[in-house]
């Protein structure tokens, strides 16, 4: 009995740590994009190193949680859903890391007039992912409270869509000074940033169904 509770406590701590790591990763992504926009190269480089470590840590934790849940036959009715949820949450930090690398490798030339819009896009997109973390945490202790927290994810995801579309519209309708190849290049960066909130939305949908199932 003591052994089972030891395993239980260990996996609860791992799940908490996993969410902490993803949460930090999202913040680092936000910081990184803003540092890129502000041309703060040193801080941006630090952000890349940090997100690299956080992403690797999230992967290790995810694998360990998945392994323990299956090998110790824990949560037989929910482990598939829980593992799927953690996988989708892990996708967020994976995408955040990939996006920062793309900024680093491709060095998009963001015109001054779009700086504020990109900064706002990353803020809103990250807020969507940030809102997902407390909802995912609360699922484990009070499934009925999940719904109240998830509506923010969907709200910010829609907002991020609007801002991204606005950026694209500005690029193609109001920016004659930018050549087409650069427009297309910047369009993809708006899309990549927006994708963080899309990832959060996918996880939120899974969480909604899980909360309903748990409440039965």
């Amino acid at each position: 009995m003591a052994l089972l509770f030891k395993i239980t406590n260990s996996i609860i701590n791992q799940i908490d740590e996993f969410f902490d790591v993803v949460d930090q990763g999202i913040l680092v992504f936000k910081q990184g994009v803003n540092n890129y926009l502000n041309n703060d190269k040193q801080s941006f480089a630090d952000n890349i190193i940090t997100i690299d470590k956080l992403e690797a840590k999230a992967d290790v934790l995810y694998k360990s949680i998945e392994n323990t849940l299956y090998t110790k036959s824990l949560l037989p009715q929910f482990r598939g859903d829980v593992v799927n949820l953690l996988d989708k949450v892990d996708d967020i930090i994976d995408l955040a890391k990939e996006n920062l690398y793309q900024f680093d490798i491709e060095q998009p030339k963001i015109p001054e007039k779009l700086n504020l819009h990109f900064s706002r896009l990353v803020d809103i997109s990250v807020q969507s992912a940030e809102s997902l973390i407390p909802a995912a945490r609360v699922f484990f202790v009070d499934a009925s409270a999940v719904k109240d927290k998830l509506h923010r994810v969907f709200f910010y995801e829609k907002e991020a869509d609007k801002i991204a579309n606005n950026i694209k519209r500005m690029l193609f309708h109001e920016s004659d000074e930018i050549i087409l190849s650069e427009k297309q290049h910047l369009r993809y960066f708006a899309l990549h940033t927006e994708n963080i909130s899309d990832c959060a939305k996918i996880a939120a949908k899974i969480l909604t169904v899980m909360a309903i199932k748990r409440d039965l």
Partner: protein
Amino acid sequence: MIFIFLTSGLFLAWSLGANELTNVFGTAVSSRMVSFKKAAIIATIFIILGAVFQGNGTSNTLVELGTINAIAGAFTVTLAAVITVFLMRKYRLLVSTSQAIVGAIIGWNLFTGNTTNINSLSNIVISWILCPILGAVFAIVLFTMLKLFLKKVKIHLIKLDSFIRYGLLIVGAFGSYSLGANNIANVMGVFIPSVIIPKIEIFGIFILTSSQQLFLLGGVAIAIGIFTYSKRILQTVENDVLSLTSESALVVVLAHSLVLFIFSSQSLSNFIVSIGLPAIPLVPVSSSHAIIGAIIGIGILRGGSEIKLNVIGQIAIGWISTPLIAGTISFFTLFFVNNVFQQPVAKLDNKDLIKDIYKNENIIVKKDSIYKVNLQ
């Protein structure tokens, strides 16, 4: 010779062990929350304990319904129940061993010309109807309480999983005890008036009476059924009524166990009488019906749309069809055993004497006073 006559009861006990473990540990084992080995060991210990220490109450009711005072009669009646259970399971019909044995006893009463104790019969039938209803009521109350409790304490899902794992073991042990106490009458109860074994004193601490020794033997046969065949059934049987979460599975097993316990506890019945309420009839009821009732209770809480209503219809049909089939088979097999094998299926109908023997276990002295009559 006695052992040969006991084989029908022992086979029924084996079948009970093979099939009924699903009701107590089915969800726990199939979801791998509890290993089969652990479940089988706990079930064996507690079924035997329940049978030996609390099996008398329900057995008394069966003896009152029909005091089968010849061992060949008891063998045949149990055999009729075995055939009924086997045939109905073969055709995938919902069958209750309790209903089969009661039908077979009534068949014996009809064959031997004994009057069926209407009071006992009505108690039994009322209990059969109450069994799934009580299962549903208990499940609704327990599940609502559990949900409110969980809402208040907010236990982490993984910690809750561990608690449920241990809860399923404890409730499974209680369920096994109640199953042994309630259902041992079905397999060994009819042999009590005819099989008389001297008392055994164990280490001077407690005495095993004749009926307790029979129950112990039945309990061992149930255990063999659990270890030899129940794993196969556990792996193949699915819950036909509703899909359950682990919390609801815990509640369902607890509700089922409470129903079986209520209908087999003499002390509880005495307590109820002491506070001025009518006594609880101690009747062997169907473990499966109690489980189905409890599952339906959970379904009602979920809005009722998921419940497969044909199962309720099957239960209601079983109340009539199972005793009817068992009674008919019992009547004809008794005729066959009595006329072809020339085995006496009944002795002098002296119910008072038999009851006296049964109650006092004063076996050796009065054994000679029972004598055989030719039914023809």
